[in-house]
């Protein structure tokens, strides 16, 4: 599954603080599950979900993206200013902030963090977006609380990138573990659990002046089995499930209606695409179908997305309008609408390309029956349902679709190396708001340009135009202008349908009623983004199954 990385992460206490602090109880332990052992505890290298969770809970940031409002807000930097066309950013640091080991937070820490981040030997995934041109970052300390960072060239969306830069300690003797986040790692038993204890030096306070976080500790149990995760939640042994599948959501809702939360369409998409790789080992006449805009659009028009949302996701999804979800409030092109099912329209488009129906079988102008296979990953019941629904939908325009489920390594081998496939159905997990993070998908030279990866030069005029627009939006810091460019990209993608977007699944989560101040959102981490303002009462939420 392609994963667009970007920033994302943020913390915002403010909303939680507004919600309630009068009744907030300090103490207690919040428990939830990680699906795997974290690959690293180095916050500069975290790129898997579990490492990201630990990073989120234990590190501090200059600027945070408020997961609820999708706006940037000050954190360790009390203010900031971008200048020089996006090449320079100056920070005014918050005073009196201490690391978890008691050492003070200073401009030296920011300088140290940037040096470490940009060290090419570190290979931090968070550094790449800052590398707009060759050269070092120039760090200037204006005064003990003010620092200026100057990059070799303008960086698109510069300020938001700092939502992904955890501040490290330059002077602490324990600079590997000293953090500015609400918790610190206290205990780790490999394969079993990670215990995080409250950072007693954490800088935030609630409206009443009480030190945050309210919780004494967070216990992260390593639990790969989703059924066991739900069982433990039902028993009250854990209090959060960050993401939950639609089937499990409904079952849990039947028993614990107060515990489940549907935050609406998420950023994630389910989509299919046709193999357009010139060297792919598939017949030439099929390549001609797949390269035809009319063919792709006709397939898209024949698909009933509303039924997919209702049946495959039990109503916890919305028909997708394009490459971005409407949940992305700023960047989504509001002119786009999800394609409506239109069988006569689809047949009309196909007729324009010489396709015709012959006794309920669609044939091309040379008489080939239109039959192709779609591969998807085995074991994903929802995706298998989508494929079978699509199989039935396409039969209405005389297309015979073979559904092939493959183990994930075989599937990846086919779509990224041998290109021995015809169509593929997969999902895209978007973790960032900003479209710059999707450069690795939309540039024709990109490796994740899935329908025809790593083109030496754009294969079509519309791909060349997307290249131009993506580069244009990345080279300006004016977000209004960038949005204009990216709206055009979204429109071209909707018109050409290199990816046929199916649905945006909803962000589903479960939170025990004993957890207070929780406000689930669509951005990750959906349930504990405001961890420092969550508190637990003694109410037992669990039920016996």
């Amino acid at each position: 599954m392609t994963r667009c990385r970007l920033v994302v992460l943020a913390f915002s206490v403010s909303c939680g603080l507004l919600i309630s602090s009068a009744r907030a109880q300090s103490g207690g332990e919040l428990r939830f599950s990680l699906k795997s052992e974290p690959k690293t505890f180095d916050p500069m290298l975290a790129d898997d979900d579990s490492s990201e969770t630990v990073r989120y809970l234990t590190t501090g940031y200059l600027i945070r993206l408020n997961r609820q409002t999708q706006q940037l807000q000050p954190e360790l930097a009390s203010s900031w200013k971008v200048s020089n066309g996006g090449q320079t950013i100056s920070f005014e640091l918050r005073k009196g902030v201490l690391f978890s080991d008691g050492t003070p937070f200073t401009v030296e820490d920011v300088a140290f963090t940037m040096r470490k981040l940009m060290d090419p030997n570190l290979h931090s995934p968070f550094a790449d977006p800052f590398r707009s041109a060759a050269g070092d970052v120039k760090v200037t300390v204006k005064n003990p609380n003010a620092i200026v960072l100057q990059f070799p060239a303008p960086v698109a969306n510069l300020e938001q990138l700092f939502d992904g830069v955890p501040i490290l300690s330059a002077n602490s003797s324990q600079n590997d573990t000293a953090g500015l986040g609400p918790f610190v790692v206290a205990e780790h038993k490999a394969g079993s659990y990670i215990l995080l204890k409250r950072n007693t030096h954490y800088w935030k306070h609630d409206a009443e002046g009480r030190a945050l976080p309210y919780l004494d500790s967070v216990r992260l149990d390593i639990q790969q089995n989703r059924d066991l995760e739900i069982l433990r939640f039902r028993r009250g042994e854990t209090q959060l499930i960050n993401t939950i599948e639609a089937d499990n959501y409904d079952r849990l809702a039947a028993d614990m209606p107060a515990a489940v939360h549907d935050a609406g369409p998420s950023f994630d998409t389910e989509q299919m695409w046709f193999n357009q790789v010139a060297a792919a080992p598939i017949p030439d006449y099929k390549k001609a179908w797949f390269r035809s805009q009319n063919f792709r659009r006709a397939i898209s028009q024949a698909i009933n997305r509303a039924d997919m949302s209702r049946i495959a996701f039990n109503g916890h999804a919305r028909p997708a309008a394009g490459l971005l979800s409407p949940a992305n409030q700023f960047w989504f092109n509001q002119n786009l609408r999800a394609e409506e099912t239109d069988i006569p329209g689809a047949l009309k488009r196909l007729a324009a390309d010489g396709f015709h129906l012959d006794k309920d079988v669609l044939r091309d102008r040379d008489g080939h029956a239109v039959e192709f296979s779609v591969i998807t990953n085995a074991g994903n019941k929802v995706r298998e349902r989508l494929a079978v629904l699509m199989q039935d939908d396409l039969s209405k325009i005389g297309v015979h679709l073979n559904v092939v489920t493959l183990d994930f390594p075989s599937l990846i081998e086919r779509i990224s190396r041998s290109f021995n496939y015809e169509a593929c159905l997969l999902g895209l997990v978007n973790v960032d708001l900003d479209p710059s993070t999707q450069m690795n998908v939309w540039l024709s030279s990109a490796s994740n340009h899935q329908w025809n990866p790593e083109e030496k030069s754009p294969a079509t005029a519309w791909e060349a135009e997307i290249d131009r627009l993506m580069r244009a939006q990345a080279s300006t810091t004016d977000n209004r202008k960038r949005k204009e460019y990216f709206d055009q990209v979204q429109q071209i993608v909707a018109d050409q349908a290199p990816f046929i977007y199916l649905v945006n699944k909803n962000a589903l989560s479960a939170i025990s009623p004993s957890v207070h101040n929780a406000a689930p959102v669509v951005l990750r981490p959906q349930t504990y983004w405001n961890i420092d303002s969550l508190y637990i009462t003694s109410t037992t939420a669990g039920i016996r199954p």
Partner: protein
Amino acid sequence: MSRARLIAIVFLAITFSAVLLADFVAPAPYAKQFREVPNAAPSAEHLLGTDDLGRDSLSRLLYGSRVSLLLAPAAALLTTLIAACIGGLAGYLGGWFERAALAATDLSLSLPWLFLLLAVRALLPLNVSPIASVTITFALLGALGWSSSGRIICSGARSIRQSDFVLQAQALGISPHRLLLRQVLPNLKPVLAAQFWTSIPIFIIAEANLGILGLGVAEPLPSWGNLLRGLENWPEVKANPWKLAPILMLVAVVSCFQLVFQKREELAS
């Protein structure tokens, strides 16, 4: 004929008739999606309710039974034949052949057959019809599932070889060919039959497991294997007990088969 055996025969007769005449008996085509009523409870229109895509569960059970009742025994027969040839001959001949055969059996048992099957699936063309896919699946299972049975049959053949009546037959000068056909094989029949009958549900379950890994019966064709995948979630089954129909059918059919053929074996002996 005992009453239990009579009931088993009648049940099997009805089942086989129903699955063979599924085109006429089934209330709906197995792939037809009644999208307005997914996961519906039993009703006059859908006697066993519908699945998660709104397909009539009774129709899918009938067609799925047809696939499994024809192909799982075929795979079981294939595996039993291979096991009988290798294990039977190894036990009967003994010596270096037995050692070689047992080494091959051990090797076969130690192979990560799941990965082997995945590798085989990865080599197959993508555009195969559901019928071809189900045939390939069961053929692979049959061809690869002989090793455990082979060991048991080898052990049975060895004990027959060492039995008094075989020694007496050899002392009387009976030819090895005749000895094998008239003495050893008839005495191996119960072991072979047991291996055959126990292989059928194993293959049906194996097919269900392979379906999860992409090697099972391709959609929309039903089989007991992919119908059993509906039982993965126990709370849902508990709330919708009619979803147990495929497993009840499997248990009933396998039990009836064993009842009928076990009695026949007893009568024959």
